[in-house]
């Protein structure tokens, strides 16, 4: 459903994303992991059309984001890491607006369903500026799900959520995948990734360090019972050591 092919994004001389290729099939949850500055958010923004790739391509549901952006974006639901919403609209008005924007049939009923799902029905007529961070995050989820997206892209889903909401969001991501959606999430929480994701993509300094299911990653690091955190630390340590080793070998030569 989401296909990223040789994606490169440069800012001047800096290559924030460097030749990244992966895909998220229907019915699967893929966790995009990496240390700070690895290029996760840049990749996500390229997939959602907020950034233009320097080279490479992104396709959603077979539609190229550059050539057929409307068709591709119609299939996407996006939850950013900072849920900025119009402060002076109420929660219900925001969903109504997005329903109109995306031409969602029966948007009123769907909006009420999602508001109830996230426990926002009592505050839905209040201005968003009065919402807590967690409530905004829940409303952003409701907004992303309003049009039944076939691909869900979620940047740091658990930030600001209370334990109940965090549990619900995990369930929701799994349910969305079981219903056939492709789910791509970035997170710094190894627990969340391990619990929710079918496979993991590890980015470091803009490049793919590793990709695969937990079993495949454990095999790669040579430990059958390694946690995702241990795998993450080992692979990112390797990434740090490699250039240093390269420099050392260069100097020795």
């Amino acid at each position: 459903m989401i296909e990223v092919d040789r994606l490169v994004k440069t800012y001047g001389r800096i290559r924030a994303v460097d030749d990244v290729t992966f895909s998220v099939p229907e019915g699967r949850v893929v966790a995009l992991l990496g240390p700070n500055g690895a290029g996760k958010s840049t990749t996500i923004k390229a997939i959602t059309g907020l950034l233009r790739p320097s080279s490479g391509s992104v396709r959603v549901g077979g539609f190229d984001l550059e050539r057929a952006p409307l068709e591709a974006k119609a299939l996407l639901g996006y939850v950013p890491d900072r849920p900025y919403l119009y402060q002076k609209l109420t929660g219900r008005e925001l969903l109504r607006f997005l329903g109109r924007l995306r031409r969602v049939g029966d948007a009123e009923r769907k909006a009420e369903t999602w508001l109830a799902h996230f426990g926002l029905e009592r505050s839905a007529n209040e201005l968003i500026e009065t919402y807590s961070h967690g409530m905004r995050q829940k409303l952003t989820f409701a907004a992303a799900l309003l049009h039944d997206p076939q691909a869900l892209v979620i940047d740091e889903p658990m930030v600001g959520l209370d334990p109940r909401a965090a549990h619900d969001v995990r369930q929701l991501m799994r349910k969305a995948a079981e219903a056939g959606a492709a789910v791509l999430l970035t997170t710094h929480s190894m627990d969340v990734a391990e619990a929710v994701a079918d496979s993991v993509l590890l980015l470091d300094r803009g490049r793919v360090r590793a990709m695969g299911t937990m079993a495949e990653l454990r095999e790669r690091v040579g430990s059958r019972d390694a946690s995702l955190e241990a795998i993450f630390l080992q692979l990112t340590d390797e990434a740090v050591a490699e250039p240093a080793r390269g420099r050392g070998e260069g100097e020795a030569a």
Partner: protein
Amino acid sequence: MRLRGAVNGLRRSPVRLVVGVVLLAGVFDGVLTVTRRGVRFLDGYPGIGTIAGAVEQRSLEALFTVLMLAVAFSVLTGAIATLYGSQDLPFLLSLPVDPVRVFTLKVVETYLNSALLPALFTLPVLVGLGLEQRAPAGYYAIAIFALLALYALPVALGAVAALLLMRVAPAGRAKEVATAASVALAAGLVLGMRALRPERLQHLTPAQFEQALSRFADLHVGWLPSAWGSAAVWGALQGRVPDAALLLALVSLVVLLGVARLAAMAYRAGWFRSLDTQGRQGAVGALPPARWERPLARLGPAGGMVIKDLRLLARDPSQWSQLLVLVALAGVYFISTASLAAEMQSFRDVVGALNLVFLGFLLAGVGIRTAFPLVSLEGEGLWLLRTGPLRARNIVAAKFWGALPPMLLLGGGLGVAVAGRLGVSPVLALATPVAGVCAAVAVTGLGVGLGAAFPRLDAASPTEVPLSLGGLIYMALSLAYAVVTTLLFAYPTYRSLRAPGAFQWDSALGLTLLAAVLAVTLLWTLLPLAFGSARLARLESNVG
């Protein structure tokens, strides 16, 4: 820290720095020239005798009073945002620094934000006065010192008013109430100044004018701080350090430090109810769309965007307050133009022809406050539009159609009203509303297009948005539009003045000229919209 941030910001955009310096130099030079000519005029006015100095001093007092009022009006919202609502306040207060020092810094920041521009505007006036009066070198230091001390008083007053407002305003609504109060006061000031009807001076005989000057020279209100300021300046002109300057400095210092101490005490004691973000309890349960939304909703995504923008406009005082000021300005414009009505038809037509240019200028001024900021007002919420199935041109078009009706109402309405009130000849009676409608379309297209091409998504309020390269280009192009269309209307006006009835709009030439106006309008509308759409489509920003 703040200064370093500002310097870093300017380093990253040197064009903005250069443009700012050039603009500032231009304004400085203009005000200096006008001041020097004004002083020369008064000093050389026949029969003015010994009261020239007194008239100049009263004029300076009047300027000080007006600018102090302007500072007082603008400081209220600024003080709330800087003193009590700024994001770095919790961080600064967590440092091992005396809170009074933190709030002193915040008071200084409020002072710079609110009083710096009026002070910069007053500076060339004082310099011009000094140059014309051959002031000693010490004058300039004392005058600038008095100026800075003078504007500290309204800042302190505004900060105290903000403090009280933070206590009494409904929770989370202090800024809204402050904005509404500031705008109402500012609109009142504009209308009040207009009510003085300065054009009456034109009709005075030389004897009456001298009498008016004499009365004005006697109009001394010594207890007003503006009088202290002018007394300090006049003392310095005569080469002494006047008591008024010392008094002003002492009072300013005491009130600024007092306000900082008061703010620190009140903040730490949790005296401000309005810092709470608790909102109004809305009705519970699903509310259907409002009736007025339904026809717009049928227009699809564009209608949805217009509905959303209207709701945000109605709820955000920083947006609707702009409209209030603009309505006041439009009222002043109409009254001013109408007051020029004369007996002779030819004179009425000359005024009507000038009105074509001024109407364009007025609409350009309105457009930069209304149409230009529209895309920027999406702010960080722009991601909602950009990740949706919309092209950038759909966003820009929706903004254009949303802004057009009020602009058409203003342009067309003023055109019809002014032409009717002036009683211009039939040629101008058609040209004026046509010019108004066309200018409304053009400045809306230009504003929305250039606003989309140069968005400022991180602007704190709509007033900040036009302070950009895009804003400058908009002003230049909108004024150029007014000039070009006026030139197109010039020939029919000229013919009409020379021989009434000699020109008809339904002649071949008339229709050609109307077509040319239409073509220019479309050019000024569509090109910026296309440019803005293309730039917005390529926009890559951390915000939105």
